[in-house]
């Protein structure tokens, strides 16, 4: 792990932010093209895994700390359930679609699904990164 070639390191550092951006694009355009919460979340998580594999987990840990990732995961689940409850407060059922619909084909046209996609995307991404940290840091 110490002798990773410099081509790999330079490319990964340059590409990392684009992979994160691609993940966010997949999450937010889930209703317009193939994608959605899970898929974008997995790309998001794999970006962090790629950085961890190339740079070493210690350096990646400094930028993406495990407790903040874990906190994001838990808060994400609470936000999801809270969004469900907003449906109840407004008089409809749990998880009903209460946001106004825009025009077909643009991003804000999905209603509640967009917010749920964002939540799930971040949950899945941070969850995968936390699993990776735990497995790599396991000592026999």
């Amino acid at each position: 792990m110490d002798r990773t070639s410099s081509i790999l390191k330079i490319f990964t550092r340059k590409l990392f932010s684009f992979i994160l951006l691609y993940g966010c694009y997949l999450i937010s355009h889930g209703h317009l093209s193939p994608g959605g919460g899970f898929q974008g979340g997995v790309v998001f998580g794999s970006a962090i895994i790629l950085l961890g594999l190339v740079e070493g987990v210690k350096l990646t840990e400094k930028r993406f700390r495990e407790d903040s990732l874990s906190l994001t995961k838990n808060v994400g689940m609470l936000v999801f359930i809270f969004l469900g409850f907003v449906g109840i407060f407004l008089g409809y059922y749990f998880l009903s679609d209460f946001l106004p619909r825009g025009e077909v084909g643009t991003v804000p046209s999905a209603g509640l699904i967009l917010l749920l996609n964002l939540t799930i995307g971040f949950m899945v991404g941070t969850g995968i990164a936390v699993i990776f940290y735990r497995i790599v840091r396991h000592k026999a």
Partner: protein
Amino acid sequence: MTFHAPILVIVVPLLSAFLTHLTKYTRLKRGAEIVALTSMIVSLFFLLSMSGPVFSGEVLNYDLGGWPPPAGISLTVDGLSFFFSLLAVGVGLLIIVYSLGIYVYARRYYSLLLIALSGILGIVLTRDIFNMYVFFEILAVASYILVTYKHKTRAIKASFKYLIMSESAWVLFLLAVAVLYGLTGSLNMDDIAAQTPIIYQTNPQVIYLVFALMMIAFGIKCGMFPLHTWIPEAHSQAPTPVSGLLSGLILKVGLYAMLRVFFLFFGAPLFLRGAGSIIVYLGLITLIVGACLALAQEELKKLLAFSSINQIGFILIAIGLGTRLGFEGGLFHIFNHALIKTGLFFCAGIIISQTGFWKIGQMKGVWRKMPGLTAAFCVLSLAVIGIPPFNGFFSKMFIVEAVLLEQNYFLLFFVFFGIIMTAAYFFRVIQTFFAQEDFKQKPDFVPQPVGPFEHLSTYVFAAFCLLVGLFPGMVLSLIHPAVKVLLP
């Protein structure tokens, strides 16, 4: 609020499971336990608020998100679902009370326990077959992790075996759901129930395939022979409250799913006769295997696990008969066995933590050190054997009556054989507890401090056994709406 109660019963434990992680940032030392206890009490409150309409026979329907089925998922509360969810919330509450006394259980344990309980509630309340699969997986994942909570090597081996067996079964279940979807175009149980008779007329082999695949999945979850081999290791190596959860609730949820699937295929009475007798004879083999292997066990918890397999055999025989008395006996025994077996596991847990021994032969003369607990163990074992005035008597009596009405004397012989064997292996344990000599404790063993919570929950279970035995009418009034769902 009664209107929204079905989804709130499921969501409140799930929400609190993630809230317990946030108690890291507050200054409460026992924040996780407070959150867990509160959430189960709130869930119980919501469940009881639905009891009025359910008892008067109406069925509460709730479509998630306002989408009507088959496009959306719907939750429905009828007598059967209400019975099981009340059992789940009640036993779950007592399991949390038991865990309160053991300080080593941290946030992760409570959040996993709450996820498992919300998974159980989701299984019994949903009306969409894929949603049932998802909740079963939620429950299963939480239980795999809970079994290995104490990082013992044998527990990890047991959990891996449980994982591989259970997951391959659920993949086969998904295969059955795929076949059903391809034929009917809907994932909603009522829609499938409406279309099954038509399919059975033209194409019975497909129904047989779906039935076989689903029986494998539910058989692994409930411990039907020959799919019970994960139970002894997993139930005995898990920490004690988790053993109670596994034996008391998870086995029963597999039986609930089996009853629901019967309901799917109700439109084909010929088929039902054949399916029922398969379940009866598999239950018979399960009963014999459980009884004989339980008699041969040295470890206390493994004996209790095999005893669970034994009782599940009784319940399978009762359910497979398909008569009204059979369903009543089976459901009553499910209720009783959940209470009794969880109480027995709690007793065993306290005894093991106080003496440090796992094997029965080493636990001689326990009654002198722990008289109250031995009395509770005796009460619970008498209940499970089926001796009046405890609750086991009524459920076993219903089962025997149901078998008698069918005039199947071969089955009757084995039912009595099962009861006698249950008495045999439990009396062996009680005899060791009352032995003349004392157990020799290992010199460097420090008994773990056992607080009031463990004793409280164990005595509550024993008291419930006596109470239900003296007034069985309370539980029967719960069972009648459930049986009305199964046999309209």
